[in-house]
């Protein structure tokens, strides 16, 4: 296994691992703008580009937590600006329920966060990501939903 269980403790050189689901037309473009503008932000994020925030199956977020992501950011176009008109509006309802359910079952709310970031908001994207990373750093490595494959019955 590439990661041993013991390594993942706060203060052991652990760095938060954030998975960011970004919609292609707005948030991904915004992240790209941050890069092109050479805006510095921490490297703790893995970006997954989706065509629209409406493509996000809540299971993506749950699965990310299960495979060991310490935090998940989901970002799309501002309501009214969706490239597919209403994808983000349907998504907003799903996200509200998902966020509420995950906190209800006991997953730290800092671990799953949502934002609307447009293609022009490079600076804002970097700021949001920075905030998310620090918030996850404060709650420590994820353990509750994480599936450990070293475990033998």
């Amino acid at each position, binding site marked *: 296994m590439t990661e041993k269980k013991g390594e993942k403790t706060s203060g052991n050189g652990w760095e938060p691992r954030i998975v960011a689901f970004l919609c292609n037309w707005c948030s991904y473009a915004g992240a790209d703008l941050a890069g092109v503008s050479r805006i510095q932000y921490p490297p703790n994020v893995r970006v997954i580009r989706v065509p629209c925030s409406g493509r996000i199956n809540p299971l993506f977020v749950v699965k990310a937590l299960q495979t060991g992501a310490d935090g998940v950011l989901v970002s799309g176009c501002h309501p009214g600006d969706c490239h597919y008109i209403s994808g983000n509006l349907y998504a907003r309802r799903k996200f509200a329920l998902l966020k509420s359910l995950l906190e209800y079952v006991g997953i730290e709310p800092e671990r799953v966060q949502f934002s609307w970031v447009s293609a022009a908001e490079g600076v804002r994207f970097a700021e949001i990501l920075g905030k998310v990373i620090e918030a996850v750093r404060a709650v420590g490595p994820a353990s509750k939903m994480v599936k450990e494959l070293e475990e*033998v019955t």
Partner: protein
Amino acid sequence: MLEVTLDKSKLQELLKLLGTDRRLVAPVVDKLGTVFSEITDPSLVCLEAVNTNLSPKETVFPQWETLYTFEGNQIDKAELQIEETVLFGVRPCDARAFELLDRVFTWDGVNDPYYLKRREKTLVVALACNAPGEACFCTSVGGSPASESGADVLGFDLGDCLLLRALTDRGKTLLNSVSSLTTAATEEEKKAAQNAASEAEKLLKPVAVPEDLAALKESFDAEMWKELGLKCLGCGVCAYACPTCHCFDITDEARKGAGRRVRSWDTCAFSLFTLHGSGHNPRTTQDERYRQRVLHKFLYCRENFGEAFCVGCGRCVASCPAGLDLRAVLERLASTAKVT
């Protein structure tokens, strides 16, 4: 035959002794009835329920287990570390089921090392029944409330004491190891045990179980399976609660080329049970699948192992969310030579 008596006031001490240097698994109170659980505090043991919600087969055939781990092409078949275990308070139906499972896991000379290692390390202390449970019918399928099959020790609840009878050499050794707590059983006590057993048998409601294999074969095309298939929800409750069901699936769990191969419980009632890699499924309807469950237990296993794979514990009847009653199905199959 070694038979000793234990005063019930010494039961806790006995359990503590049995659990010394061993894992003790016995029924404890759970949300629904009782369940077999590994215990460190003997005062939690509850022997009041006739039987536990799920069968004790988990001790020798867990819901899941890792067969081996791998990293790339490296396979690591770590030696299975199983602790010496005493399974206490198993009812004779469930003990008999172990004997049936033994046949499956050593069939045709193919010995399942995972099952056998656990089985070898598990000492079974059975407890005879004084009365039937909700849906019991052990005597109708070749068992009895005091059956000796599959256990190392058989206990009888005589009210203020337990009579313990060694059935195997291991059982004898076990009873000898707790001799400080027991006394030799008196003739009276032995008779009381026998009476308890025959009284319990009388309380059972007999179920007509089909014995004619040819007639069972013919029932394959009967109309009765259609409605049963409509009723059956296709979940895994009956097979998972059943002490003799033994089907399993093997799946891999891996991340970046490293992980483990696991085996987990499966059931012929699931719609995907017989789904082939090609996409073809020979049993696409629930009536075919329900028919398969019943015929496997009462026809094919008889052909393969000489006995029906049912010990009459009644759990499938009690727990079926669709309200299916195996006893009624068996009566229907047994009632006419030519079944419709």
